[in-house]
């Protein structure tokens, strides 16, 4: 007797649990905004990781200076592209909750490529430096920019919001990545 009760309970419970979503019209999420972000983020992280690895390889003498510079500008371009796409996607979401159009993405890629060429001294190069610094430090605490109030990551030399040079960071490190 106890067995029949037990089996019925289990069977009923399981069937109810399994069929409930269909009966009640509960839907599982089929898309999450993070999915698009993850793809671009993965590419960005890969490029930034590559940059960091390249720097270590150069410093430990595995890479020639010439090879290192070539690798660096290539990876910098990739990272910038990914970061551009990330921004477009984010603003696209905020504005109309849609994914960025192909055109917007293409445009961002093109401008990123152009900018990577002159990455040594302009604001985007600085942005890249800050991003690299951020990766190297890992996810650290924030640091507020006196100019725009943007919260930057610790020991950034430039504000990622407005590009303004932040207060001198008390670092004893020698040259960070030479541009």
């Amino acid at each position, binding site marked *: 007797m106890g067995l029949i009760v037990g089996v019925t309970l289990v069977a009923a419970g399981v069937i109810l649990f399994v069929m409930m979503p269909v009966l009640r019209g509960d839907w599982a999420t089929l898309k*999450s905004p993070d999915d698009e*972000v993850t793809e671009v983020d993965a590419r960005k992280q890969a490029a930034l990781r590559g940059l960091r690895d390249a720097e270590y390889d150069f410093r430990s003498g595995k*890479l020639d200076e010439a090879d290192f510079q070539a690798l660096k500008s290539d990876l910098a371009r990739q990272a910038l592209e990914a970061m551009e796409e990330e921004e477009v996607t984010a603003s696209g979401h905020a504005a109309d909750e849609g994914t960025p159009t192909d055109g917007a993405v293409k445009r961002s890629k093109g401008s990123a490529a152009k900018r990577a060429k002159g990455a040594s001294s302009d604001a985007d190069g600085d942005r890249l430096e800050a991003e690299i610094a951020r990766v*190297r430090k890992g996810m650290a605490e924030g640091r507020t920019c006196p100019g725009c109030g943007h919260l930057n990551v610790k020991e950034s030399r430039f504000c990622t919001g407005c590009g303004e040079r932040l207060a001198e960071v008390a670092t*004893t*490190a020698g040259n960070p990545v030479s541009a």
Partner: protein
Amino acid sequence: MILLGEFALWIALPVGIWGAIAGFVGGRKERGDLVLSAEHSVYAVFFLLILTSAGIITAFLTDSFEYWYVANYSNRDLPTFYKVAGLWAGQRGSLVFWALLLSFFSSAAVFTNRTKNREFMPYVVGVLLSISSFFLVVLLFADVNPFERLPFAPADGRGLNPQLQNYWMTIHPPTLYLGFTAFTIPFAFAMAALLSGKLDTRWLVITRRWILLSWFFLANGIIFGMRWAYEMLGWGGFWFWDPVENASLLPWLTATAFLHSIQIQENRGMLKVWNMGLVTLTFLLTIFATFLTRSGLIESVHTFAENTTIAFIFLAFMGVMAGFSALLITWRYPLLKSENQIQSFLSRESAFLFNNLILLGAAFSILWGTLFPLITEGLTGQAIAVGPPFFNRVNLPIGLALMALMGIGPVIAWRRASRRNLVKNFLMPVIVGSMVVGGLFLRGVHHGMALLTFGLSAFVMTIIIVEFVKGTKARAHIEGEGYLLAFYHLVSRNRRRWGGYIVHVGVVMIFTAFAGVAFNREVVQTVDPGETITIESPFGHEYALTYQGLSSPRGQNMVRQAVALMTVERNGRPVESLTAEKVLYFKWEQSPLTIVGINSYVLEDLYLILENVNDLGGAFENEAGAQRATFKVQVNVLVGWIWYGGFVVTLGGIIAMWPSRGSTKTASRPKTKTGGERPALAARS
């Protein structure tokens, strides 16, 4: 409870099939309700299989010998934890155990992806439940139901084979199964990526940790098996190229290859088709491992029983999965084009690629050797077999090449390494390696292959140590940290890489141990109490074992036990005594079990085997005249390095798997709160 467990198994099948269908249809038609139902099915199947497993264990614990399975693997006197382990002691129960672990990992996969990777999940669930349903179908319809009953209950069961009555029984099979079943998750994600068309590196990033986890369990499971063999069954050996051993090694080899080749895809966007093929192959090999163990098709001391129905069912399943995957890969081929190509043979991509090819070469040759009797018999009618000599012969050069790669890989930069810098970086390690070879040669080691192994060992170790030093220095310089902090940050900020290097250290230790086998010593002697056996090790240690005699205590579940005692002197000084035994187990009296004694030292093991007692019956009765016995004494050189190396591999694996704060799995921006809820209410059409 037992009957509830049996019913649970029956209920699980329709639930599993429904869930699989709901997953695929829900994904295709974008019906979130079906997808949610499918995800619930995953949890439900897990719950039901817990009930089934509980039912089986209860049957063991209550000595319910009316169940065929319990009667075959248990008896009244069996210690409790072997009764619990009865779940995986035999073919039928181990199929349930497999299904249980698979459903556990499936639930974990669904749970951890409740709010991310949503485009994949419907298909992931579909694939996972399809595979689970396959196992359920086999359990219910292929004459392997663990709940099969006998016409009436025998008074007592047969008991568990004494060779299985040790603690390894509770560790080795579960660990291996965890490894096998965990690999189904990456496979499911790969298929989901193909089905959904999302073929960028995302599916790799998602499944990276699953692959590592599966690889980790497999590595540990295999090493546990080696230790079990060494401690109990192998008379000093630890690997016999037994078909079932080989079957567990194959997916580990391809999983190792996969762990390396995914890095190429992540960093350079290459080898996409290759990786799809590898993940499918590894999954198929895990199924092949079950197939080989269950079917008895190839003779092995491990095979449970000959059952040709099962053999065909598993073969058919493997065929279907292989075909399904091949079709999907072909369909999506345009999306799997490489973004880059190999620029130089002197690059890390190239080293990783060679690593892959060599590992696959090893896997292929092991598969070939294992199946050779079947193949030749099928083709020519005459079966031809190859044994350990073949496998050792073929895998030795492969092992050496892999060692060389473990040294070369870290030194080479991505894309294109400058030759000049390579030479500079290799100089010291090569010198160290040569010095080791030269030094050993002068000390009398003339075994060519062993010398090469030791030399490569030193070469790789030097390179890895230098890597750690250089990396720490570079980081300290760039970040302005002290060396200790720099080291800690170095490793924790790139756990995969440095964890991987630690794994390589462990593997090098294990290969070095293999080379030690060439120097093992052995003495066989028949002695009376008071007589001494001496043996000398290649390292110059002298062992004197003095036979004290036999005694016969009695333990649980044993009928008779004859314990031989040897007092041991090492280089003239007394050390720990050794005992070796012959034991008769209740219900298995025809096959006395031999228990060995081991004294482990850093560079060698002293290993004692009681080979034969002239008058075993008399010995069991403690008769004074029945003490004459034959012993085999071995010195096993460097064997401990397998276990030490295993620990290092485990440590490296844990470091590599350890989650970091702000890991790449979650997006680097804070999660939007709206993500999960929005479509749930809005999108119903």
